[in-house]
């Protein structure tokens, strides 16, 4: 289902999902910290790699990652919350997509590179239902910043590009959006689940002994989170 449809669906459910709750009034506990797990899958789109000595049809895919989620939320009003969310920087893997071999060097399916992501998002969220309700769906929009580090080309990757290679990925700043639901438990605890999307784009440049190859990647990550929180 497309993300916009998911948002509408969440909003529609919210209209029917509000219940009275027995939770403690939120004004006294405007802060929440959450821990959970991100489940990220990428749907990267990029033009084929371009540069000298680069045949057409060379592209990449990215393996899904799972990484711990942590967030700090601050209620501003009974319905509006700011969330600063981030994950333990995951090690994402780029896998070659294209012809089976280049010359005699295996290509398709080879793990080419690993890179760590630092990718916090800042979101403004609207929480449906009464603050005292136990189950509160929410939607949010905000901004994501992503920078890439510990970029590592694998031995298979070096064999493909022809030698030791330095890689750069430009950092990304883009819109982010989320929709989720939080369920209050006794003693200020909660559990939550959400679906998020962020626009993460980066210019990728690889330099192999002076041969420079590049592409622009749109990572299109779609992210599920499951977590628990504590308000204070």
């Amino acid at each position, binding site marked *: 289902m497309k993300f916009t449809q998911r948002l509408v669906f969440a909003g529609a459910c919210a209209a029917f999902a509000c219940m009275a709750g027995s939770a403690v009034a939120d004004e006294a506990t405007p802060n929440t910290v959450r821990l959970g797990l991100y489940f990220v899958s990428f749907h990267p789109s990029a033009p084929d790699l371009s540069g000298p*000595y680069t*045949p057409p049809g060379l592209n990449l895919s990215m393996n899904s990652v799972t990484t711990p989620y942590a967030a*700090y939320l*601050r209620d*501003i009003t009974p319905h509006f919350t*700011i969330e*600063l969310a*981030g994950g333990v920087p995951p090690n994402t893997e780029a896998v070659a997509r294209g012809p089976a*071999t*280049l*010359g*005699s*060097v295996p290509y398709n399916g080879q793990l080419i590179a690993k890179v*760590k992501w*630092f990718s*916090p998002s*800042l979101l403004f969220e609207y929480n449906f239902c009464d603050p005292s309700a136990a189950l509160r769906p929410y939607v949010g929009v905000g901004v994501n910043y992503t*920078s890439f*580090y*510990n*970029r*590592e*080309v694998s031995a298979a990757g*070096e*064999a493909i*590009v*022809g*030698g*030791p*290679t*330095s*890689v750069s990925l430009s*950092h990304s700043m883009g819109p982010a959006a989320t929709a989720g639901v939080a369920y209050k438990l006794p003693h200020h605890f909660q559990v939550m689940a959400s679906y998020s999307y962020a626009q993460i784009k980066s210019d990728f440049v690889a*330099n*192999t*002994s*002076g*041969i420079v190859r590049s592409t622009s990647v749109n990572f299109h990550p779609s992210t599920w989170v499951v977590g628990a929180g504590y308000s204070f």
Partner: protein
Amino acid sequence: MRIGIVLGHAVLAAFVLSSCGSDSTGSSVSSSSTPGTLLENPPARLASLSATDFGAALSATGSGAQLLSLASAGTGQLKCGVDFYLYHYATTGGAGESIKSSGALMVPTGGSACTGARNIVLYAHGTAMTSGYNLANIADPTNEAYSEAALNAAMYTAGQGYIVVAPNYAGYKDSTLSYHPYLNGGQNGQEMVDALTAARAAISGGNLFTTVSDSGKLFVTGYSEGGYVAMAAQRALQAKGMTVTAGVHMSGPYALEAFGDAILSGNVNIGSTVFVPLATTSYQKAYGDMYTATSDIYESAYASGIDTLLPTGIPYGTLTAGAPGSNLLFSTGKLPELALFSSTTPSVSDMTALGVPSANATQLAALLSVPANPLSASGFGSSNLLKNIVRIQYALDAFNPANMDGLIAGTGVGLAPAPAYPLRKHLAANDQRALWGSTAPTAPMLLCGGHNDPTVFYSVNTSGMMAYWGVAGLAGGAGKPIQSIDVDPSSSSIAGGIATQVATAVAGTYMADLAASATPAKLAADVGATVIGLYPSHFSITASGATPIDAQGVLIGAIAAAAEQVAVGDYTAATQVTSPTQVGTDITTAVVGVYHGDLVPPACTVAAVQYFSNF
């Protein structure tokens, strides 16, 4: 506001990290301009082909399949795979410029016959028209270097397990020199030394080259311009005390003064309209005295821009994208295809006007008239490249009886006593007889060529050098350190050479098959059999076909393939050719046209591989 406060929160500090963490390092890069410096270590590998995959790639074309057969000794299975690297080195230009150039390293891969200590072949390539010429780019069959790269990679690296070091030369791929120091013997030899030094640094650098090492044996070889360059390289290596195990120099313009004398007098060679601008620019850069303006020596139709025309930045695929044999440089009027000289040759009055005594003028006018033989005559036309004044002034220098080249006069082997006309003076200074002087080559040498070569004349260059070294006792007999091999088995007394001999025989076969309404396949087989049947002693002929048993057989086999293609083309043309004269002309034209570029190289490379295997 709120965002700022939140972003400024100390919590964020925990997430901040340096924007450059550790990442894979590239190769080490040097900006040193010391000649011979390897500029990236390790160099980039452009392609890696296993023995099987390289063989499959070659099999895709007819000429590639023939090459595979030669390189695999007929088995079809190459011994080694090949890794192709593009490397960059610092060197010096033709006027002392500090520059960079690039080259190819072809490294064997595979089993025990392909790893460990490897012999090195230092290869010098032939005349290239395009500045993108790149022997490392085996993945691009439209690159001008492709067939030369495939030939050397197959025969030496895949076939013998040798490492091939093959520079692209100053002025070509990734070079910072804006021109190519063509036939500049000092620069050419020194650049090959620099290229070898840098290549050895890459091989022993330990980075990617963990499976091969330098055995210490060095073979030096090259074709056409490369034959000249390789001989100059052998000279430069010897002068530096660097070991050369053996050299094979193929179809090169070694005796430059004599070759120039022959051409300028009217014996025009095929390709002259490309060679002359390259040489003129090279010598203008090195010596500065070839002309004040290009229009001094070039006809006005071509003078403007001729000094930057070659090598051209136009990609070879684009240059030759038109009809087979076409070239944009010719079709867009930048260069004449064949006409080096005006068909209105210098007259007696042209020369007496310059102060030449009329008796001499009459002699010279006759000497410089359009020759009778059609091959030389094709070098004359109305839209010619060089002005008559060049011919006149050159001839006054070259055919002054007191100032003749011994090889041209037939009186000896030495250079002219005092060449003064700039072009002749510089050809003489770069003549291999001047580069070597009385120094004897300390490594054994084989000079290879075909005696019917219309592009680089065998008699004046190869036979000339053999005669030169023969006087010193170094050549001219079994056991001498300098040997020669003529891969053309035809008798030199055949009028019109081997091309005419083949054309006459094939025309007969063609007419017989035409009368019998044979299939094109049968015609091809019959033509092949006819050509091979002219020189059967160079083949092993069995029921399954004819296999060359020596270098001459390889040449004849290549001629057979060319003749088959022409015959079938004529037979299956929209308007079928039915005239034996026409067939004969087509065959002759084709054989002459590809003799130097396509027929002799595989034959001489087979001879070279055989020669090197003795060391």
